[in-house]
């Protein structure tokens, strides 16, 4: 068998059962770092957010960030975890220049939160994912590899390191092994990370931007022959940085491992790298070789002992969680599962909910966000939430339509104007002159002109060929630049020509 052989997914699933495991890292959105007061701004010039503590200069000592501890406990509670009554930080020792200390402060056998679960919906079914642990550690610096052809560490001449990120609080969330997902394994993995991201957002603990690395996922996959009871050897695919990649990485690793196993080979326990361009993984360093971190309790920090009464307060103050909220909104808005899924995929819940809160009927709010605005977002390649229009403005447009001041066509023009920076909906209506022609006198004058200009068509209608009226209505709409009420125009045309439907 050559390296890189894949077994078609369907065949792989006929012969093998996958077991998944997911490790997710979430960078907390605290103002300052985990153990020092340096800022955490993303994209700051290199080495401008560093101090003696996060550079590990002699004599500097860490002090834990209270907000990071609180956020981690809230994450644990949202994931139905038990919270440790007493736990410690630990040193994870390793030689790699991304940490100036030559160790990372992490947690080892005493995580802050443990033994929880998260329910995710996949194809209308609820899958319960066990949570092994949620612990707190510090992020590492960012290395750039210089001199190699590809910017990768392999073949590089040397590396340069920016320690701005070193010491930013990082929460690691580890699932229990997830068996029994069968052919839905890639979907389950994606649904889990999606749900986790939403929970982080609702808690307000992180901006969870996968493209900026504030949410990162490592995907563990193993296969066992159908009917076997013993799990196979797993691989860990690192830093899979989009939801789509999570799904693709699981799928690709299933296809690769199946091909190796079917050929009589064995899976090596190793770290693998995911490649966005091909959607496949390649071997990294061997795991056994890399793992000897000689953890020991961090002597520079005292233990954490969260007061159970405080933990209970945090639990009581948790916001409504995304899955609960979705069920509530679905009931309130009377939407189908399919509609909900589409809104979920478009990240439209917040926007529609805010639009409804601003006074729009739910059906209208959904219609505009999922229709015209989703189309615009798609065209310009920006997320829906980043369109230059507010929920209140969308609500105003629905109000103008409901009152008869705008029809849908004009409303689309108003939206276009608002998105183009022409001002509020009312300003756009005013500036572009987009009100529906409600003035019967004005409409009548337009119709008279259209009838005069289209005498042939008018005669046909007079002779009883009602179908010819369509062209006249079209003429009125053109003459009014779309601002006439088409139904009323038709009524008036027929009246003027002395015929009825």
């Amino acid at each position: 068998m050559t390296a890189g052989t894949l077994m078609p997914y369907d065949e792989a699933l006929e012969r093998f059962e996958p077991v998944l495991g997911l490790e997710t890292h979430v960078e907390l959105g605290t103002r300052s770092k985990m153990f020092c007061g340096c800022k955490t701004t993303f994209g700051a010039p290199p080495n401008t957010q560093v101090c003696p503590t996060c550079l590990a200069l002699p004599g500097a000592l860490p002090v834990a960030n209270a907000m990071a501890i609180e956020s981690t406990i809230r994450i644990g509670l949202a994931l139905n975890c038990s919270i440790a009554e007493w736990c410690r930080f630990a040193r994870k020792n390793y030689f790699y220049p991304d940490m100036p200390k030559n160790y990372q402060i992490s947690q080892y056998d005493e995580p802050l939160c443990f033994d929880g679960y998260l329910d995710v919906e996949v194809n209308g079914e609820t899958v319960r994912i066990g949570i092994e642990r949620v612990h707190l550690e510090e992020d590492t610096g960012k290395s750039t590899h210089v001199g190699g052809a590809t910017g990768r560490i392999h073949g590089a001449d040397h590396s340069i390191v920016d320690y701005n990120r070193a010491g930013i609080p990082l929460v690691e969330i580890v699932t229990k092994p997830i068996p029994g997902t069968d052919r839905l394994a890639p979907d389950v993995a994606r649904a889990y990370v999606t749900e986790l991201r939403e929970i982080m957002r609702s808690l307000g603990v992180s901006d969870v931007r996968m493209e900026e690395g504030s949410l990162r996922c490592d995907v563990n996959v193993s296969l066992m022959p159908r009917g076997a009871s013993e799990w196979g050897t797993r691989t860990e695919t690192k830093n899979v940085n989009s939801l789509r990649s999570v799904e693709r990485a699981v799928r690709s690793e299933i296809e690769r491992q199946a091909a190796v196993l079917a050929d009589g080979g064995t899976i090596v326990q190793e770290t693998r790298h995911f490649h966005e361009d091909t959607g496949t993984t390649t071997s990294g360093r061997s795991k056994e070789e890399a793992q000897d971190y000689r953890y020991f309790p961090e002597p520079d920090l005292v233990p954490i002992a969260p007061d159970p009464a405080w933990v209970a307060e945090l639990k009581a103050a948790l916001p409504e969680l995304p899955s609960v909220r979705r069920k509530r909104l679905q009931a309130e808005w009377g939407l189908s599962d399919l509609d909900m899924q589409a809104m979920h995929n478009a990240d439209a819940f917040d926007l529609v909910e805010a639009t409804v809160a601003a006074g729009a009927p739910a059906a209208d709010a959904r219609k505009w966000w999922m229709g015209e605005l989703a189309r615009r977002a798609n065209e310009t390649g920006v997320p829906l939430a980043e369109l230059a229009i507010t929920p209140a403005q969308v609500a105003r447009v629905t109000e103008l339509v409901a009152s008869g001041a705008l029809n849908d066509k004009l409303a689309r023009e108003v939206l276009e104007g608002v998105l183009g920076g022409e001002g509020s909906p009312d300003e756009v209506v005013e500036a572009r002159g987009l009100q529906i022609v409600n003035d019967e006198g004005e409409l009548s004058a337009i119709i008279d002109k259209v009838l005069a200009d289209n005498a042939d068509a008018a005669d046909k209608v007079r002779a009883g060929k009602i179908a010819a009226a369509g062209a006249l209505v079209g003429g009125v709409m053109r003459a009014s630049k779309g601002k006439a009420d088409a139904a009323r125009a038709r009524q008036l045309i027929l009246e003027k020509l002395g015929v009825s439907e």
Partner: protein
Amino acid sequence: MSAITRDEVAHLARLSRLALTDDELDHYATQLDAIIESVAKVAEVAAEDVPPSSHALPLTNVFRADEARPSLTPEQALSGAPAVEDDRFQVPRILGEEA
């Protein structure tokens, strides 16, 4: 005969990026053994009712408020670095040193 083997010392030395000679491996095996024996004596006096301790201070929950404070300037931060490139710490090739 040491309880700590030469192989264990060699493993530790490799993890710590120390190049030790054969003589040094034997030397440190004996020394580490003596240290571990001495530390083990603590276990002899620790009674059942004494919980294990990892810290000299009888404190828990020492936290700081989440407030940003001024950092060093990049010039200060990089002033002790042996080599600098593009305001970053330059380090030797990472992979290949173990090959």
